């Protein structure tokens, strides 16, 4: 009998289905890898298993007994412990304090410091990190050491099932080696390990069994080593093109360069980024989530401090120190931000006020808003983007997600920008609005705008872009265009696999 069985797990967030009828079986004493694209449902599965979110449907069986985890604490008590990729440590407390934080040893109603230290030392040793002092403050440790403390913290809870969600992404090569040893030892102790990673070589090294997820459910489980990388990628993609994309004309060879970067770097998160974006061109940014795409867009828009390298606009070097500088007449840049609710809109304010916000300087005379001119521009935008509102004076938060996104785009189009940076603009919006946004992008490009477009959806990148830069670990891993721009090539590049894999399956 498997140690853990998940049966028919479904989970919806509002109208979005994250999991539908997912199954998983995990044996004790094995390392089980879970693979899948962005949004395939891996994270949601882990959240359901570790009690962070409740499932809408389905059962979780542990040793054949049905379990209901109402909270992470309940899951921990049953022996399911998760090491999340977002670090959960409290920086101002010591390593030992953090390790025992959920259940500190008590003596006469007070924390037993000696016992706490003993538990912490044991846990750190078990995690292969006995070089970390239990009394050190977490904030003084580098990121990779903190990740080790995170693992020790999980082990201090004596798990039967340990979930590692991208737990190695912050580790140095030396630490990764040690972690491998630790994980193999834990396996021999009879633990079940659920291992989520985007790094195929780690999975090849560690996993006993793999399950591939796609579109919210498991498509295949197999023993590690019985499938080739190409077959695995096939399983991860394996879907039909669902979207129709507008026709695009090739960019003329003599199109003027509008935006260039030379060896752009930032804080270890971006390095050596060089590309040229030309008039009328749409360049896509691909790769797995969190490989530096957002940072690149923010860097170009003047949000990040301490950039290395050069940015050139229309051939001239520019020093963009704020969004105000980036949107100025000389540069003419616009950024459609990632999260419309926290970065794009002021939800309680009216549609009208939101629409004209980025172009207020264009519709004011001596600081006073010229309402007639404002209305003209707004009418134009509402027509161009077909924004559906119950009235311009309603709060923008009352609109549907797709219409909110249109307001964010419209507020920038009002400035008629020459360079448009789009940060995953179609996330969480309906198919119809997506189509409208694709059309709009091609229309703007045809009118001469230069567009840099980050998307987590590979179809979109293939359908909308003239070229795609695939980022991996803050660097441009490859550039794909024309015939090479296929889903196989995108996924293979994103996973940092050899190009030959893509070719054999194409």
């Amino acid at each position, binding site marked *: 009998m498997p140690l853990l069985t998940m049966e028919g797990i479904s989970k919806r967030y509002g109208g979005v289905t994250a999991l539908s009828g997912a199954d998983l079986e995990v044996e004790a004493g094995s390392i089980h890898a879970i693979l899948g694209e962005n949004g395939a449902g891996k994270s949601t599965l882990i959240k359901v298993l570790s009690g962070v979110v409740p499932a809408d449907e389905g059962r979780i069986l542990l040793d054949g007994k049905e379990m209901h985890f109402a909270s992470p604490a309940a899951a921990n008590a049953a022996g399911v412990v998760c090491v999340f990729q977002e670090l959960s440590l409290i920086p101002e407390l010591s390593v030992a304090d953090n390790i025992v934080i959920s259940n500190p040893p008590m003596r006469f109603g007070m924390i037993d410091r000696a016992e706490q230290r003993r538990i912490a030392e044991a846990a750190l040793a078990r995690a292969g990190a006995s070089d970390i002092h239990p009394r050190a403050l977490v904030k003084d440790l580098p990121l990779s050491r903190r990740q080790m403390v995170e693992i020790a913290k999980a082990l201090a809870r004596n798990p039967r099932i340990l979930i590692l969600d991208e737990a190695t992404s912050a580790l140095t090569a030396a630490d990764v080696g040690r972690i491998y040893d630790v994980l193999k030892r834990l396996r021999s102790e009879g633990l079940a390990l659920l291992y989520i990673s985007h790094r195929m070589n780690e999975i090849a090294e560690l996993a006993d069994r793999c399950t591939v997820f796609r579109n919210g459910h498991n498509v295949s489980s197999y023993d590690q080593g019985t499938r080739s990388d190409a077959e695995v990628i096939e399983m991860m993609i394996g879907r039909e093109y669902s979207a129709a994309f507008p026709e695009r004309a090739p960019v003329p060879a003599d199109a003027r360069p509008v935006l260039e970067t030379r060896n752009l770097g930032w804080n270890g998160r971006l390095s050596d980024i060089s590309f040229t974006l030309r008039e009328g061109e749409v360049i896509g940014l691909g790769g797995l989530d969190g490989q530096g795409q957002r940072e690149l867009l923010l860097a170009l*828009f003047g*949000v990040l401090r301490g950039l290395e390298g050069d940015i050139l606009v229309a051939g001239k070097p520019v020093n963009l120190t*704020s*969004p*105000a500088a*980036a*949107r100025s007449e000389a540069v003419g840049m616009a*950024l459609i*931000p990632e999260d419309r609710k*926290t*970065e*794009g*809109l*002021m*939800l*309680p*304010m*009216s549609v*009208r*006020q939101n629409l004209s*916000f*980025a172009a*207020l*300087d264009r519709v*004011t005379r001596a*600081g*006073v*808003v010229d309402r007639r001119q404002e*209305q003209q521009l707004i009418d134009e935008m509402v027509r161009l983007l077909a924004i559906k509102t119950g009235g311009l*004076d*309603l*709060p923008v*938060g*009352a609109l549907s997600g797709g219409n909110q996104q249109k307001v964010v785009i419209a*507020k920038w189009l009002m400035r008629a920008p020459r360079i448009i940076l789009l940060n995953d603009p179609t996330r969480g919006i309906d198919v119809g609005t997506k189509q409208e946004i694709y059309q709009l992008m091609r229309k703007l490009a045809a009118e001469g705008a230069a567009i840099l477009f980050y998307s987590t959806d590979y179809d979109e990148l293939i359908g909308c872009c003239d070229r795609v830069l695939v980022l991996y670990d803050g660097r441009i891993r490859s550039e794909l265009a024309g015939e090479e721009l296929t889903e196989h090539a995108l996924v293979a590049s994103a996973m940092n696999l050899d190009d030959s894999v893509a070719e054999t399956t194409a």
Partner: protein
Amino acid sequence: MSDFQQQDRPGFVEAFKRRFDPAVATAFACIIVLLLIGSFYSSNFLTATYLIQQMKVAAFLGIAASGVMLVILLGHIDLSIPWVLTAGAMMACAATGFGPVGTALAVPAGILTGALFGLFNGIGVAYLRIPAMIVTLSTNVVAQGLMVVYSGGFSPQDSASDAMRWLATGVLIPGVPNAILVWALVAVAISFLLGRTAFGRTLYGIGNNERAVYLSGIGTRRVVLLAFVLAGALSAFAGVLLAGYASKAAQSMGNAYLLPAIASVVLGGTSILGGKGSYLGTVAGVILITLLQSILSVMQMPEAGRQMIYGVVILAMLLAYGRGPRSV
């Protein structure tokens, strides 16, 4: 949010409904209730003379509250009102000691003093990123120290200029004291600023979502700085008028204005977290606080009791409006 007139489409009732703010309506309802209660204690309470007298008293508070409202809309706070107000009054009076030129410049000198303290607040909050509570509290103490040094700890001997007296106690339009007129002018200016200018829009924007405003390419720091400068200038202007009313400045003249100024903004429905509120509400809040003070003194409530009642009323209003779900 308030002053958005619909010239181009029908539906006056709709427009009215949308602009109808329950907090403002409640504040006005409370004013009526207070007037009724007051009329039980004294038959003078509903006479024109008494009401005009109350509006005149309210004007000083109203001007100080106008400034702090700008800051509260940003989601910040200005706790430096008491001594910035006093400093404005003292510096205006001090200017009269410099002959006719000084006398002529007394009012601008007072306002400028407040603007400088406001600049100090604004730099601290917008550029040094210190919480407004800390910066403005420090400014208050620094202003106090400077004024004690200036006056030697006693009320200064210089007296208010004729212009200051005229602004506070003169009568330009028969029956309407100038102080009320000055407040009305400030009210029109602030309403215009909030409803019709890019600066006003940006104030509301920052109060709602500063990050979105910054990413819209707007220099948020300058807007925050300017709001604090205006708040300081208006506090000091209230002090200048008060000195004109009393003919001279006094050490602790500002102490009675901090809580009432903030309370009247909040009672008028402006969110203490920023981003929401109308000037009409602040007017209602100011009148409400002034009447409350007046009734408490008619009832011969001791000072301690008044303070407690302020506190309780503010808490009650915050419970009623401050914690409601966001309108979205």
